[in-house]
């Protein structure tokens, strides 16, 4: 697989605070890379560096295998972006906004504008002034502007910001079809995991400037598979007993046993075993955790041991 974005030890410091700390991002051809992190984690700062809008304090950035520092113009020709809030000219219509950018990018084909308007679903609103657009329409125009130059890489910073569930769904559908239809690689940031869960195939999670997770989304999903929680009167000795049987048992913050298996026979075996050992069984229940719980756990540094 060819690497589309590759950073090594990418770091940004403002005065003495490190906002992005030695992160190694890797995005491959055809990926939809979800770049996740809570507010202030360093997502926008990273994206600004990827676009050459700010200079890294330390570290290297390669895009399409070329060093960004030496090939910025050549790289930007193939990149479409939307950073933080979408930029547009409020005094122009949606069509005119795209036309202004079309002129800048020297795209000969004027039909491209209507094509983009159709893709982002703004064809009916194209002659409306953008200052009268709803938030969702503005976001879609921002994505349209990013798509106008037929980029090979699309970098979107929180494109679903402020959208209602239907709007999020729409953008999700739009972005999902980009890699297969046009062969575009997408990097999309968000602070809500569920927003990009259904479109990203790869996820990077940034927290306090550190990239604390980066892998296929399935790996993250696995962490969210249900598990069994058992509350007993003496959890330490219960743990020792079960460990002797070769079972992987952890304790959570409430001193409950946590077992990452949900096989019926196994659970009944465990229950029997504990009762035989004269321990009092208070509760056995299944805990389902959403991806959001996992994300919260990761980014708030709680219960990391049992993940």
């Amino acid at each position: 697989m060819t690497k589309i974005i590759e950073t090594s030890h990418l770091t940004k410091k403002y005065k003495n605070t490190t906002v992005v700390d030695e992160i190694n991002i890797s995005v491959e051809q055809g990926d939809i890379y979800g770049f996740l992190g809570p507010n202030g984690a360093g997502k926008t700062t990273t994206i600004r560096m990827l676009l050459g809008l700010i200079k890294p304090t330390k570290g290297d950035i390669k895009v399409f295998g070329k060093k960004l520092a030496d090939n910025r113009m050549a790289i930007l020709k193939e990149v479409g972006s939307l950073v933080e809030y979408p930029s547009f000219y409020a005094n122009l219509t949606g069509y005119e906004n795209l036309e202004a950018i079309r002129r800048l990018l020297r795209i000969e084909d004027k039909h491209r504008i209507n094509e983009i308007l159709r893709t982002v679903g703004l064809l009916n609103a194209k002659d409306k002034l953008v200052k009268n657009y709803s938030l969702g329409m503005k976001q879609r125009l921002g994505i349209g502007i990013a798509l106008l130059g037929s980029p090979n890489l699309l970098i979107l910073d929180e494109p679903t910001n402020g959208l209602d569930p239907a709007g999020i769904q729409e953008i999700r559908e739009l972005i999902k079809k980009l890699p297969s239809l046009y062969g575009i690689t997408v990097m999309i940031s968000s602070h809500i995991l569920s927003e990009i869960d259904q479109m990203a195939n790869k996820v990077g999670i940034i927290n306090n400037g550190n990239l604390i997770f980066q892998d296929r989304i399935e790996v993250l999903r696995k962490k969210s598979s249900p598990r069994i929680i058992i509350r007993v009167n003496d959890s330490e000795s219960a743990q020792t007993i079960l460990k002797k049987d070769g079972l992987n048992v952890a304790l959570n913050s409430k001193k409950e046993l946590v077992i990452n298996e949900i096989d019926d026979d196994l659970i009944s075996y465990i229950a029997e075993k504990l009762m035989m050992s004269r321990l009092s069984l208070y509760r056995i229940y299944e805990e389902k955790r959403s991806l959001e719980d996992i994300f919260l756990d990761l980014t708030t540094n709680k219960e990391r041991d049992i993940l």
Partner: protein
Amino acid sequence: MNHVIASDQLKMKRTFIKPISFLFPFLILLLSFLILSMQKESMTSQVNSMWESMVVLTHFIIMFVIPMAITIMVSNLISLEHQNNSWKLLFALPISKFSFYFSKLYMILKLCFLSGIVIFLGFIVIGKILNFKGDIPYALLLGEAFLPFLGTFPIITFQLWLSIRFKNQAFPIAIGVFGTVCMFFLQMNKITSMFFWAYPALMTPVKQLIIDGNLAEIVPNGDLGFYTLLSIVFGLIFMVIGMFDFSRQSTE
């Protein structure tokens, strides 16, 4: 370069920038016309030609109105990008930052040129309406229509720098107004008139001598070459500073 200009042209749609560039020449011409039609009797008795008197009189209006208009036009043109937060969009495009700067500068210069043409044609119309004697002195009128703009070249690049530098346009506009007010005093003295805010006042093809406190003969302006040189030099200096600052600002 042309494609950036074409884009900037479109961005000015529905803004006040173009209307201002046409309105302020009319304001100048209207004031000039009103004063001239009231004072025609006293002026025709003078030794000077009416055409020359018109130029001298109008220059007092021009030297204040043009720098003010330019301050406002530059501010409007630049705040278009500030208000819409579009610098970050522009800088992420594969286009050199300098072309964005030059395109803005070109826009202003072009509008100034068009305003100059309006003023030039307006002079002829006023002269015809008020029945000035003699042939139309084309060189004189062209000079008065365009030389003050040349004198504002440093103000254009200076204001461009400030307007790009500061997101809040209150500051650049305040400086522009302050400079315009100061111009009248700056131009009175040989030393202070070296300061660039004085140039619009001094860039005129003719000036009227004052002998014993009375208005006398109108003679060609001998200092024209000197102030033309200063205007160009300082205009270019502020252009380089502005460009440098612009390219730096965008990366941080």
